């Protein structure tokens, strides 16, 4: 059988199916999902959906009809359970499917915190629609929330929970928020915005256990024995790639993900990995890495589909990502490199500014707060890599695209 079988039906898997059809793949496309919901946008789960601004239908990636019309066999609640790479078939809960091409788009899962009391009622992680439904209901009944982990998802939840009148405390093990993903100036700005809305932070504490009474969480016990009370605890300590199937057939791994080349191909020809679960050497990175973003999932999916259909151009895409908290729209482009210099454009006190990171005189990464034009210009400058004029780039009144040195 000459089908394309895709494991995982989210941003990467659905885009791969759509792109294969668009590029003229004539054979069956089987799209396996572990979930029971039609594929949906994940970012709003911690933003508009949680805040009650969007309902589930508004989150759909595609209309249910789309799959039928495109001849994509979407199989909900039919997870892949094993792969036979020699017979080239995937076994699922319901049956087995032969493949010519296999695309692994299994994404990531929330990293668990295996401490005493984990899993008690009132404790949550946030990764799927099911998680979001539970958390949204939980939030409506709760009065005091503790968020373990000051990452993007935890902070987005904090901004929503505090507006819903909950008492909110964020526990961050590191001395600073988001220390691996944001420049200090921006991370501190985001922290201050939360503090001004009433969110409390505790840095550097270890969490020892969940306090539980009658099966319900009542708080969190810290390493020093102190107990913080809460009736809702969100564990937001990051994600890990879902690589179990890939490992079971011996695919090479890198940086915690499935190692792929610039076409998304794994160490076995004809088997691709894409999205959160894949690790590849992005043209803008110094080593293979996983990127957890919609942009990366979509671009890798398109690139894998192109390669399957005979294309040969490797993926070159500037990474970008966003987070929304309160009235802050934070947008990131590119990848930081060691030894970069930093420019700040605009004044954080105005609530709109950008931090630019340069290597020599080339822009490599950009972080903007409420400055969408800078974000879009940065994507261009990172990709085209002209020499940046630092004086002009530091002047927020000069459009960033013009802050380049005249060609020699």
């Amino acid at each position, binding site marked *: 059988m000459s089908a394309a079988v895709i494991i995982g039906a989210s941003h990467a898997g659905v885009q791969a199916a759509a792109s294969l059809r668009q590029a003229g793949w004539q054979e069956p496309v089987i799209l396996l999902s572990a979930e029971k919901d039609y594929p949906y*946008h994940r970012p709003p789960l911690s933003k508009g959906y949680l805040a009650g601004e969007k309902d589930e239908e508004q989150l759909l990636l595609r*209309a249910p009809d789309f799959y039928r019309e495109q001849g994509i066999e979407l199989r909900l609640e039919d997870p892949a359970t094993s792969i036979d790479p020699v017979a080239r078939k995937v076994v699922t809960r319901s049956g087995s499917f032969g493949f010519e091409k296999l695309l692994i788009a299994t994404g990531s899962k929330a990293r668990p915190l295996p401490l005493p009391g984990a899993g008690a009622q009132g404790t949550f992680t946030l990764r799927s629609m099911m998680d979001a439904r539970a958390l949204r209901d939980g939030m409506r009944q709760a009065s005091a929330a503790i968020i373990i982990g000051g990452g993007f998802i935890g902070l987005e939840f904090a901004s929503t929970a505090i507006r819903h009148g909950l008492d909110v405390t964020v526990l961050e093990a590191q001395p600073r928020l988001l220390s691996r993903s944001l420049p200090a100036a921006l991370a501190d700005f985001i922290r201050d915005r939360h503090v001004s809305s009433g969110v409390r932070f505790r840095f550097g504490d270890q969490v020892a256990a969940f306090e539980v009474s009658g099966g319900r969480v009542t708080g969190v016990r810290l390493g020093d024995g102190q107990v913080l009370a809460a009736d809702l605890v969100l564990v937001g300590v990051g994600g890990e790639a879902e690589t179990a199937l890939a490992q079971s057939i011996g695919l090479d791994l890198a940086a915690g993900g499935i190692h792929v080349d610039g076409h998304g191909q794994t160490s076995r020809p004809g088997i691709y990995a894409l999205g959160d679960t894949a690790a590849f050497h992005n043209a803008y990175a110094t080593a293979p890495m996983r990127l957890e973003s*919609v942009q990366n999932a979509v671009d890798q999916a398109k690139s894998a589909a192109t390669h399957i259909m005979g294309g040969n151009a490797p993926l070159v895409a500037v990474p970008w990502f*966003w987070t929304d908290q309160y009235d802050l729209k934070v947008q990131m482009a590119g990848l930081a490199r060691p030894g970069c210099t930093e420019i700040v454009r605009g004044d954080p006190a105005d609530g709109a500014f950008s931090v630019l990171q340069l290597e020599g005189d080339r822009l490599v990464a950009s972080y903007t707060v409420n400055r*969408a034009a800078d974000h879009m210009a940065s994507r261009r400058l990172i990709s085209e890599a002209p020499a940046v004029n630092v004086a002009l780039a530091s002047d927020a009144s000069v459009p960033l695209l013009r802050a380049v040195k005249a060609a020699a």
Partner: protein
Amino acid sequence: MSGSITIRFRKESGQQIEVQARPGISVMEAAVMNNVSGIEAECGGACICATCHVYCDQVTEGVLPEMSGEEDDMLDMASAERRATSRLSCQLRVSDKLENAVFVIPENQF
């Protein structure tokens, strides 16, 4: 569907699709829910991808909300040509003012 608003999407080829949309959702969401192709909406309405671009020359002047600076900036980066009537459909909310409005979908969004 009671209370729903009729809006139309037209391809540049001239093909027209009529959909029923409930008030409060975005024009982008109305397109996606009704399987109208040509609105990609990669970012799901976060106003950061510009792949939900539409032309609104068929929409009565004054019924669309004012454009935010952010939408304006994003439109500059849209893949199809930006025109005076360009908007991002994720930033337009369906309301009774849009009854029978026609949104033209550009040839490409990437």
